[in-house]
C-alpha cells in the first residue's frame, strides 16, 4: 500500500467531532494513513478563527510531521482576515478552509475576493466545503474558480450528497485550478469519476471523525484501488501543499 495522505480531518473538542490527537493517530494507523491535513472544528470555523488555527499548528508541531495544519478565517472579518491568514501561514498552515454554511456567505459573493486574491499570491490552496444546499453548491465554486484562475481551489466533498448529479458536468467543465476532494463521497460512487477528469485532480479524504478512516480506506480501495491510484491517495494533495509560500 502506498503512502496515504488524508486531505481532511477535524481533531475537534465538542459536539459530534471530539477527536483527541492520539485517537486520530490511532485511527490513521488502523487505516494505513501516513499523514493527515487537520482543520479547525465548527466553532473555530465560525467565530474562533485565530485560536482554532493556533490549535491546529500546535497539534501539528507535536505530531512528528504526521499532521499538516490547515487554517480558516471568516470572510466577514474583512481586513483582519489577511492578518489571520498570514499569522497561520507563519506558523506552518498549508491550506485555507472556507465553509460557506458555517461562515454565512455565498461562495460567489464578492466578500471573498480579497481572500482569494491573497491565497493566489501565496499559492495557498482554498478548500471549500460543498454540499449544503444554498451556500455550498459545487457549481458556485466552479464559477468562482473561473474568476480567480491563479488561485487553486479544492472542491470539498464534491457536493455530497444532493449535488452528485452535477458532478459529471462539473468534472468536465471545471477550470484547471480546481481539485476534487472525496470525503463524504460514497465509495461505491467512484465509477462516476472514472475517466471523467484528470486523475491528478482527485484527492482522497475521510472527514474523520465524522467518518471512520479504516472503513473509508477499506471501501474506497475496493472501488478505486490504492495501488492503481497513488495520486488520488496522497501524491496530488502533497504536490498542492508543497507550493505554499509563507
Amino acid at each position, binding site marked *: 500500500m502506498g503512502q496515504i495522505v488524508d486531505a481532511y480531518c477535524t481533531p475537534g473538542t465538542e459536539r459530534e467531532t471530539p477527536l483527541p490527537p492520539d485517537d486520530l493517530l490511532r485511527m490513521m494507523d488502523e487505516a494505513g494513513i501516513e499523514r493527515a491535513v487537520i482543520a479547525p472544528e465548527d466553532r473555530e470555523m465560525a467565530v474562533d478563527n485565530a485560536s482554532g488555527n493556533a490549535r491546529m499548528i500546535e497539534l501539528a508541531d507535536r505530531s512528528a510531521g504526521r499532521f499538516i495544519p490547515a487554517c480558516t478565517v471568516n470572510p466577514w472579518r474583512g481586513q483582519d482576515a489577511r492578518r489571520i491568514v498570514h499569522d497561520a501561514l507563519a506558523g506552518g498552515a498549508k491550506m485555507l478552509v472556507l465553509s460557506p454554511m458555517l461562515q454565512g456567505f455565498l461562495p460567489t459573493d464578492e466578500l471573498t475576493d480579497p481572500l482569494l486574491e491573497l491565497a493566489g499570491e501565496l499559492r495557498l490552496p482554498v478548500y471549500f466545503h460543498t454540499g449544503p*444546499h444554498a451556500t455550498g453548491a459545487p457549481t458556485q465554486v466552479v464559477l468562482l474558480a473561473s474568476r480567480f484562475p491563479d488561485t487553486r481551489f479544492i472542491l470539498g466533498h464534491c457536493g455530497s*450528497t444532493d449535488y452528485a448529479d452535477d458532478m459529471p458536468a462539473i468534472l468536465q467543465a471545471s477550470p484547471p485550478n480546481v481539485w476534487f476532494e472525496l470525503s463524504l463521497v460514497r465509495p461505491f460512487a467512484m465509477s462516476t469519476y472514472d475517466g471523467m477528469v484528470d486523475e491528478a485532480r482527485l484527492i482522497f479524504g475521510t472527514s474523520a471523525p465524522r467518518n471512520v478512516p479504516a472503513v473509508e480506506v477499506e471501501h474506497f480501495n475496493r472501488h478505486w484501488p490504492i495501488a492503481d491510484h497513488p495520486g488520488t491517495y496522497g501524491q496530488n494533495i502533497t504536490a498542492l501543499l508543497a507550493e505554499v509560500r509563507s
Partner: protein
Amino acid sequence: MIVDCHTHWGDCYQQQDGSDPTRWLEMLDRYGVTHGLVMPHIGLAHAGRIPLDNNQVAAACARSNGRMIPCCTVHPHDRDEALAELNRCLTELGYRAIKFHPWLQGFSINTAVMDEICQIAAEHDAPIIFHDGTPPYSLPSQMALLARRHPHTQIVLGHFGLFEHWREAMAAMAYADNVWGCLCSPYPAAMRQLVRRCDPSRLVWGTDTGFSFADMMGYRLRLMDMLDLTDDDRHAIFEANPVRLLGLKPDDTRED
C-alpha cells in the same frame, strides 16, 4: 432477520431483469439481509410513468417469496389521479407503504392533497416514507408539521436529514411521535448521536440499494458496525421496529 427499509426496484434492474428479482435478492443474500422495503425509481422522476412503475414494483415483489415489501408512489399534483392510483395500489396491488421524493417530484408536502393521502395511508396502516434532507421541499421540519396534523399516519424520514439536516431530523422526531428515522445516509458520527438521542423505538435502517447496480449494502452495513450498537438496539433497528412499522406478519418474516 434484517430489514432494509430503504431500497428501490431501480430502472436499471427493470431494464435488465424485467420483473425477476433473483439478482436483486442476491445482493441481500450476500449480506444476510432478509427483507427490503422496495420503492419505485423511475416513477419518482417521471410522473407519467407512475402507474407502470407501480405495476413493475408490485410484480417484482410478488416473486420474492415475501422478502420484498412493496412501496408505491403517486404524484399529488393531480388530486383525483393521485388518489385513484393510491387506492389501486393499496387495495388491488398489495402495497404496504407509500414513498414520496418531494424534491425530485417537485411538490410541497403541506397541502390539502397530502392531507387526504395521509388519511388514506392511516386507514391502510401504510407508512409514508419521504426523501428528506434537501430544501426547499424535503426538510424534516416540513414533514414534522405534516405528521403532527396526522397523528395516525406513520411518517418516515428516509435519510434522517442527510449530512446537514440531521439535527433538524432529531427535532422533527421530538416534535411528533409518529415521525420515524431511517439510518440511511448521515455519516457515522451523526448516526451515533441519532441513535443515542432519538426514541429507539422509531429507528430503522436502510441502504438505497437498487437505485443503481452499485453495491451500497456492504458499505452501509459496515457503517452500522461503527456505531457500537447494543444487542437491543440492533434488534430494534434491524427487526422489531420495521416489523411494527410495516405490519409484517409471520408469513412475511420467513427467511427460506
